[in-house]
């Protein structure tokens, strides 16, 4: 364990190394490139490999191939590159391939303001890949959390056999803070479950009780079949409703079944006296917390809820933290997106969307001003 002064992107790289990632495939894009640059420098020392591919499509597909060859893999990009990756994320979902994709959000649409921050990809990561899937996404708010959540992202991907999105932003990416970097033996590292059946009995998509099939890698003699078509437990294409329903619901339910390992959050000043709740995430939550402290100094009974996991939402948690409050303010650096997700579960309190578009981050003053007008 050591304390290091580093940027959020360096923390993602370090987190990935701690988690055991040994194959990184990427294509340069601000504000994500320095993850690849940093890894290109240090990963070879760990026996790993960094390859700059011809585009983001190649990068994500190469990462999937590497994962099937038994090596933990990742790629990192920003909004435009993520858009190019979504077809392969869908492939990762149906083939149950562990992989981590870091999306360092910048201001869009399109080329937008490439060097500046935003939280406008929160729906893209959930809904852009076609077809049915439930791909988890985690959003760090600090350098330490960029490190910790990267490890968590790998652990989830290996445990549940799913792609996982690490949804950071330009501010978290490039701010410098001290972070505790751990040794492999000081942190829980999850590795994919291996088959216990002999190769001739192995079925690549036959789940255990926990809905997750053990995963054999290429080269181990299991005659693995990675199948993008809807398939039965052997991986054979089937065009039947029964097989299709069974597969799709298992893909969704295996994620839901492990929600306790996936869902993470933090609450601040939340007790049974709290009247107002601010919900905020990622870099914006830093300003939101400053605004909360300011309001509390003024005597307002306000608390804060900060989801670290943006997808999937754990419904019970949202219900629990909002059960006694009068009003909920959802503060985010976009035109109002995650608010729709929280609103689905908040039945009693009034929900107010506070979208503050800011190329830097919404300041505590900006947040204070809008929130105060609703008190």
């Amino acid at each position, binding site marked *: 364990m050591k304390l290091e002064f580093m940027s959020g992107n360096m923390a993602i790289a370090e987190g990935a190394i701690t988690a055991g990632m*040994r*194959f990184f*495939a990427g294509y340069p894009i601000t504000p994500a490139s320095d993850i690849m640059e940093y890894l290109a420098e240090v990963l*070879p020392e760990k026996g790993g*490999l960094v*390859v700059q*591919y*011809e*585009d983001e*499509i*190649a*990068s994500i*597909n*190469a*990462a*999937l*191939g*590497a*994962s*099937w*060859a*038994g*090596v933990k*893999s990742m790629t990192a990009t920003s909004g435009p590159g993520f858009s190019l990756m979504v*077809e*392969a994320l869908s*492939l990762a979902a149906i*083939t149950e391939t562990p992989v981590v994709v870091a999306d360092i959000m910048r201001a869009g649409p399109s080329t937008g303001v490439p060097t500046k921050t935003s939280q406008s990809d929160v729906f893209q990561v959930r809904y852009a890949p076609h077809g049915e899937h439930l791909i988890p996404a985690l959003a760090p708010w600090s350098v330490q959390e960029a490190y910790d959540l990267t490890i968590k992202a790998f652990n989830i991907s290996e445990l549940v056999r799913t792609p996982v999105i690490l949804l950071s932003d330009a501010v978290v990416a490039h701010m410098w803070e001290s972070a505790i970097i751990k040794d492999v033996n000081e942190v829980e590292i999850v590795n994919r479950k291996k088959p216990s059946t002999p190769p001739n009995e192995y079925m690549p998509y036959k789940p255990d009780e926990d809905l997750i099939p053990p995963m054999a*890698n*290429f*080269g*181990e*003699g*299991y*005659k*693995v*079949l*990675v*199948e*993008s*078509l809807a398939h039965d437990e052997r*991986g*054979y*294409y089937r065009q039947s409703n029964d097989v299709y329903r069974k597969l799709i619901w298992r893909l969704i339910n295996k994620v839901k079944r492990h929600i306790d390992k996936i869902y993470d959050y933090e609450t601040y000043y939340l007790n049974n006296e709290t009247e107002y709740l601010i919900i905020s995430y990622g870099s914006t939550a830093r300003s939101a917390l400053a605004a909360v402290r300011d309001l509390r100094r003024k005597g307002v009974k306000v608390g804060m809820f900060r989801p670290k996991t943006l997808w999937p939402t754990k419904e019970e948690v949202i219900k629990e933290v909002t059960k006694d409050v009068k009003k909920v303010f959802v503060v985010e650096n976009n035109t109002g997106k995650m608010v729709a997700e929280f609103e689905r579960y908040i039945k009693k309190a009034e929900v107010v969307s506070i979208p503050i578009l800011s190329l830097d981050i919404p300041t505590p003053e900006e947040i204070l001003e809008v929130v105060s007008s609703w008190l």
Partner: protein
Amino acid sequence: MAVTSEASLRYSTHPLDKYLRADRLPHIWCSGCGIGVALGSILRAIDRRVREGSLDPSKVVFVTGIGCSARASFYVGFDSAHTIHGRAIAFASGAKLANPELQVMVVGGDGDIAGIGGNHLIHAARRNLDIIVFMITNFVYAMTGGQLAPTTPQGLYTTTTPHGNPERPLNVIKLVSALMPNYVARASITHPPLIEQYTYKALGMEGFRFIEIMSTCPEVFGRHAGYRDPVTLYNVLRSKVRVKQNPHVDESELSWESGIVLGEYLIRNEPGYVRKLKEVVR
């Protein structure tokens, strides 16, 4: 001549069954389709390597995208991946680089490999990436029902060029040769031993190895070109191809009109990408 009894003609196994997921047969390819001939020849080359002890079948990985040709991956009894249209080479590269012990082979149609996947083809060849790519050229997008392919002869009717194809076909041999990978060859399903010979050779090499296989699609291309009968189409293709020893890349034009030259266009022995990587990062 001994009279063969009917019973002895029936068989329940084929010599290549051990390399197939035989429980999935019969396959979906139409009768008269050339893809099966191509795959059979590839498997025979693998079998030769396995039998002589120079290839471990548990290290063979077939990666394909989407298309009729791409279905090859789910019939073979090796580790295999049937991925997404155009991205097989990218997926394959990750598998190979993550575990260089694997013998990674990509099979795809010309649309899959050189159309939508063209960018990956170019860069894998440029890197001399250690994989074998088989491109099965049937002059048309077959799986989706007969649309224009990058290899479609000029003037031909396809469902998306109903007034005739205005485009020049892509000479993939020339394109890939320009990138100087280790091996570039063109074979044809009308000459199965050639496919087998080239594959056998490629299996013994490192670096990027590209084998184009001219093929017949009686169902779709045949219909468009007026050769719906598989035997007729086979004979037409046979009349158009010509085998040449060490042909020059300038002879590689993909011309339905003036003929198609088969042969080994490029044979080099440069270090493959895996070896290059080891040289720079250690």
